[in-house]
């Protein structure tokens, strides 16, 4: 028994370190120019799922859509305790906006079958849209509970969840399967476990093996390279270290709905805004204090 939790995670550019090359001519993000990290709120979604599994039993499957390098976040999830990890990677999925992404993810979740929970971070720090979770719920036909702060209880097929509504909270009960988005105040993600790290550090996706073979055997024929990749994949598989990898065909995706063709969103501009402040002033809550404040605001043209 137990619950099958799927966690959607994303590798994102570290937006704390945005440089001038962050955007391409066509307005899409140039990921190669930015250091990548595990989207922070997705770590909290993962922790919610791992904690649920530890308390109520079940399995945690992690799903990420992205370029080959996104395998990093999958390994990180395994290090922290995820049972299974799948990389959804396909060039035809490049430049997908939230609509196309949620469509692709929904196809992948459908393929997984018998899902009880889908957890997503509230939003990613690159797009900051917070749309993929809710859109994914709609595509799957699942009820959605956004802004989870605590899973209060779980009985058979009903979950009780406290969600933050900005100026307070509400407690909702929801039937499974359900999609839940998680806030960073929900928990503190557990650390990577050393023994899992030592075991799974050698785990690879097929696309990583392909890239490594290209580097290691630059002069080999395609067949020779393929044989080497298959040999390594077999070794990894026998030790449980082969990470799963799906493409759009594997999940029966309609290509019209994927990538650029499935994405009505156009990025107009990426702007780097640095917020600065210089100290602060304390205004006494008196008539004179207020008068003083208004005078200052008029002087620097905030008022009037």
């Amino acid at each position: 028994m137990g619950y099958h939790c799927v966690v959607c995670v994303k590798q994102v550019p570290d937006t704390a370190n945005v440089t001038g090359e962050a955007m391409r001519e066509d307005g899409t993000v140039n990921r190669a120019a930015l250091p990548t990290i595990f989207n922070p709120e997705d770590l909290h979604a993962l922790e919610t799922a791992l904690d649920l599994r530890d308390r109520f039993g079940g399995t945690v499957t992690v799903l990420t859509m992205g370029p080959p390098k996104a395998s990093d976040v999958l390994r990180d999830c395994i290090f922290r305790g995820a049972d299974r990890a799948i990389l959804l990677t396909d060039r035809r999925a490049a430049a997908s906006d939230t609509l196309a992404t949620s469509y692709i993810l929904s196809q992948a979740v459908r393929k997984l079958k018998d899902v009880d929970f889908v957890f997503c971070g509230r939003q990613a720090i690159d797009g900051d849209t917070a749309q993929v979770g809710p859109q994914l719920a709609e595509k799957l036909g699942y009820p959605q509970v956004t802004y989870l702060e605590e899973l209060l209880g779980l009985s058979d097929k009903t979950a009780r969840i406290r969600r933050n509504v900005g100026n307070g909270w509400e407690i909702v009960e929801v039937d499974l399967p359900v999609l839940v988005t998680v806030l960073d105040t929900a928990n503190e993600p557990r650390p990577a476990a050393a023994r899992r790290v030592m075991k799974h550090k050698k785990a690879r996706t097929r696309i990583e093996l392909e890239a490594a073979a290209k580097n290691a055997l630059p002069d080999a024929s395609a067949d020779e390279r393929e044989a080497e990749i298959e040999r390594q994949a077999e070794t990894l598989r026998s030790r449980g270290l082969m990470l799963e990898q799906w493409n759009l065909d594997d999940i029966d995706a309609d290509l019209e709905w994927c990538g650029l063709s499935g994405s009505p969103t156009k990025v107009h501009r990426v702007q780097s805004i640095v917020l600065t402040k210089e100290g602060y002033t304390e205004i006494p809550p008196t008539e004179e204090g207020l008068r003083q404040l208004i005078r200052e605001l008029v002087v620097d043209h905030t008022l009037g």
Partner: protein
Amino acid sequence: MANFFTDNDDILFLFDHMDLGEIARVQEQGFADAQQPGIDYAPVDEADAIDNYRRILEIVGDIAANTIAQRAEDVDHDGNVLNDDGTVDLHPFVADNIKRLGQADLMGFTLPRRFGGLNCPNLIYTIANEIVSRADGSLMNIFGLQGIAETINAFADEEIKGEFLPRFARGEVTGAMVLTEPDAGSDLQAVRLKAFEEDGQWYLRGVKRFITNGCGEVLLVLARSEPDVSDGRGLSLFITERNPKVTVRHLEHKLGIHGSPTCELVFDDCPARLIGQRQRGLITYVMALMNGARVGIAAQSLGIAEAAYRIGRDYAHSRKQFGGPIERLPAVAEMVTDMKVRLEAARALTYETSRICDLENNNNLVLEFNPPDDADERKRRKQLSKHYKRLNGMLTPLSKYYASEMSCYVADTTIQVLGGSGYMQDYPAERYLRDARITTIYEGTSQLQVVAAVRGVCSGAFEKRVAEFDEIQYTDPELVELKCKLAEVKEDVLAAITFVKSQGTDYLDLAGRKLVDAAVAVYIGHLFLQQAAGISGPGATAVSNGQQWADYRNRKKAMAKHYLATELPQARLNCQRVQSGHRAALDEYELLAGPVPVKE
């Protein structure tokens, strides 16, 4: 994300500089675990093991920076709570910190894999202890107590090992070494807590005091099992789990390390089990435990000093007075550089000690469990064992002494750099000084470390080791010149040793600190030269850490020059003072100390 391992250049440098391949080889004994069924995380070769060490330290650095350090101020402020029923509630953050370290598999750091441990060498554990201590010095008193599990592993029978060690490795239990009593502090031979046997069951009765983490689940208790033998040979070591027959009577109110519960324990005919053999409790088991613990305190000292130094360095740079940053004032510049030099000096010495511990422990394991068939090889190993034992007999107290004194100095000087701000509780500087202050006291005071170290220095261990260092051939003429300077001062130290040996034991102990200070200056001078040259130790020829660290090695050269320029004159002076034979502190004690104050 902040990380206390990857943000520390000096630790990263030493990680690459030290011959970790050698350590991995001796630790993994042929990398046999990788072939064992049921163990899926053992390294297959040296490179794999070193990569594991790095990854493990990255996890430690992550938890230290992002979790433990963030909570240290609250833990210091609130402390732990003693309940009416003689149990203790750890501060919720302390409990959660330990839980997280357990989740990360870090609570069985050095235990064998068959018990779920990481089988890490002591050296990597030492680095981990430093990193944790930088985040919260007091947490190291629990994280750094893994020597208890090691002691069980080394000396208990298989049944006890199988029962306790997996629980340590899973982080379910923590331990305490229950040694000190009201009248048995530094002098553990005076332990009185009674152990008696009835119908084949041992019981403990009596009181223990100043027990770090005495509220932990597993207690290793030193007790008198032989009422007729009054010295250390009458003591045995026992293990007991928390139960209603052992209660915490009092939690100490301390100057620092508030997160570490220091307990007074009452044993009321508490059932216990014997570890190993009777009568070997103090003379074998506790001695081994204490030696490891001393290296642990050296690491704790490093961590607290690192944390303090970083504030001092930052403040000297950002605080502006007289039209510029205060680091431009010569007096401040001297304080800052002095702190950094001593910090790196202590780290070099402590890691070196820890490395030699690994070589010694693993060599002993081979001799005990897999003695070589070849007689010559057996003989070589036995000689090696003797060599390491003597070297460690000197290095362990030397690093505990040097690192803890350094820690107090750095924490104190950081406050001085911060001036009035440092004295206030707005900065953690004052907490670091309070936390550092214990390091020169527990696990044997500095004065006792000197007593042990000076015997090592005079036994020939110092001379032999430095002779090995002298053999290292440097190609850089500047390093050659520095080595000559060290050789000169070594002669002064040897002359002082000869002089001391001609005097009585009381003069040896009176001159001890000065002699040890002089010897340690020469020793550390050599370690700095090796770091500057990228030579990991005697016998190594290739540059240990390649082009990547070329700039840092140059920096270490400057460090070596500066260290020798400041420390060698001091060392010479110390040798002169030793050879003066001046012993008024002993001969004219009453006169100089004046009358004992009369209590009103």
